[in-house]
């Protein structure tokens, strides 16, 4: 157990009871996420990557093993508002402007009006949406909406950012752009990020650590430490080093599939 470890899972099990018998969503999952890490979870559908993320967020209760967030239980971490969560769908409230959407967590957490306004302005700037505060969600493109939802997760300064396929529904070009922005944001804020994705290039490009998972039962098959530098222009994706890591991820995914 390192001191800088932010999220620690130890032999985590989660079994859903369904009409067709038990489904092992997670089995024996152990992982350490250090402070400031950018960890991607990649694997086919049903491998438990989203379930694992939801366990960290106390949205799902493990049936065995242990997990700590900031050294406490996920429930305590949730109550301490230790993380911001970004869902696949932006999920902005259509009846609130972008600014009021971002101040939603701040209202709930009881920040003063002055501080709300200040934080909304700051996070909007962080995701490059300054000037869109008064717009309604439908007036923004899908990529901009997702940026606003990231701003909403950043607004209350949680140290951990949990992201569940946030760019999964966006097209390739928008996705590239948002990946680049996310890396810059990560560098500026030094947050710990757990990121679920389907895309190998996205995982390799973003992460310091890539966790490859496989289904039935959901488990970790490989953990790859990235050797890429922290500074990553988009064209790093053509470098031999990048392709090497991508190759290893692909191998890991294939190995996981060989089971069934």
């Amino acid at each position, binding site marked *: 157990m390192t001191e800088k470890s932010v999220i620690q899972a130890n032999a985590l099990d989660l079994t859903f009871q369904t009409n067709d018998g038990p489904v092992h969503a997670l089995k024996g999952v152990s992982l350490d996420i250090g402070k400031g890490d950018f960890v991607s979870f990649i694997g086919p559908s049903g491998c438990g990557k989203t379930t694992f993320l939801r366990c960290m967020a106390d949205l799902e209760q493990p049936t065995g093993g242990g997990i700590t967030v900031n050294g406490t239980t996920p429930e305590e971490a949730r109550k301490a508002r230790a993380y911001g969560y970004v869902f696949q769908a932006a999920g902005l409230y259509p009846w609130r402007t972008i600014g009021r959407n971002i101040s*939603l967590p701040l209202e*709930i957490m009881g920040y003063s009006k002055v501080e709300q306004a200040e934080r909304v302005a700051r996070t909007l700037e962080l995701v490059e949406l300054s000037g869109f505060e008064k717009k309604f969600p439908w007036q923004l493109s899908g990529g901009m909406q997702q940026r606003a939802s990231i701003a909403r997760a950043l607004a209350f300064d949680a140290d951990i950012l949990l992201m569940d396929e946030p760019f999964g529904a966006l097209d390739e070009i928008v996705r590239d752009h948002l990946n680049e922005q996310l890396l810059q944001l990560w560098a500026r804020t030094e947050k710990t990020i757990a990121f679920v994705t389907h895309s190998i290039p996205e995982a390799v490009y973003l992460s310091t650590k890539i966790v490859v998972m496989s289904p039935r039962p959901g488990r970790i098959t490989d953990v790859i430490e990235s050797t890429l530098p922290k500074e990553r222009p988009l064209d790093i994706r053509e470098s031999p080093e990048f392709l090497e890591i991508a190759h290893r991820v692909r191998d890991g995914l294939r190995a996981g599939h060989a089971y069934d």
Partner: protein
Amino acid sequence: MRSLLPVLTVLTVIVGIWYLAVAPMNVRVALDQAERAGDAIVPEGSVPRREISVWRLMLDNSKHVGLGYALERPRLPTPAQVGQELWKTTGAMIAKGRPWSKRGLIYHGWITLQSTLWGFALGTLLGIVGAVAIVYSRTAQLSLMPWAIISQTIPIVALAPMIIVLSSQLGIEGRGVPKAIISAYLCFFPVLVGMVKGLRAPQSSQLDLLRTYNANSLQSFLRLRLPASVPYLFTSLKVGIAAALVGTIVGELPTGAISGLGARILIGDQFGTPLAIWSALFAAAVLAGALVTLLDLIQRLTLKRMGMAT
């Protein structure tokens, strides 16, 4: 404005069919009157004519068919007659400076409108409170919902007299309160169903999001469920207010009420004055149309302000 042409076309067709229907509907009465006035009618006497179809009578007495369009007590009045009667009991009353005369429809419409609005308010309140209970409590869902559904299968005409008798037993004066209760009885159901749907409209990820903020249930109700239900609420309110008006009119029918549009319909029936029935019917339709349009307007403004205009 583009919808004006189809609307006018449909209206023209309806009025056309109506005018055509007046002749066969009124031909017997018209022939009886003409015969009494000394005209020759084939066959003679109203009793033998009962055996003959209206089409045959119209063919044999084509000169007298037109009389059916100008009867004082027609079986089916023409649109123009209904229009004149409506004007006589509303606009003309105002022109005479007696808009609140008990012989005018403004007075009776106002009586009906009052009960409708009270019933609507009561029904909406009941519907919303019931929906909140159903969404937040499984016990309420299991116990309340079946009764709400059963309540709508009981014919309101059978229930209305009982409500009147009960409320007078309880010492409630006048017809206003029982009429409002009957009206609320019809109105609460669409509001309840719509609100349950609206309050359950947020997706699970939106509820999860609030959970990650550690929001309490009051916060998630006020900030998520309630605003998400607004479009559903307005749709239900429009159905609800029309139901409330129907409820009030039904409440006025079998209860011996002497004022209100329902009472006018009943009195018109008892005294054999179809014109009074038809004009009361049209007054009710105009009232319903106005109320629904008003709600539609409020809906548009509200949703526009909320940024959810469609």
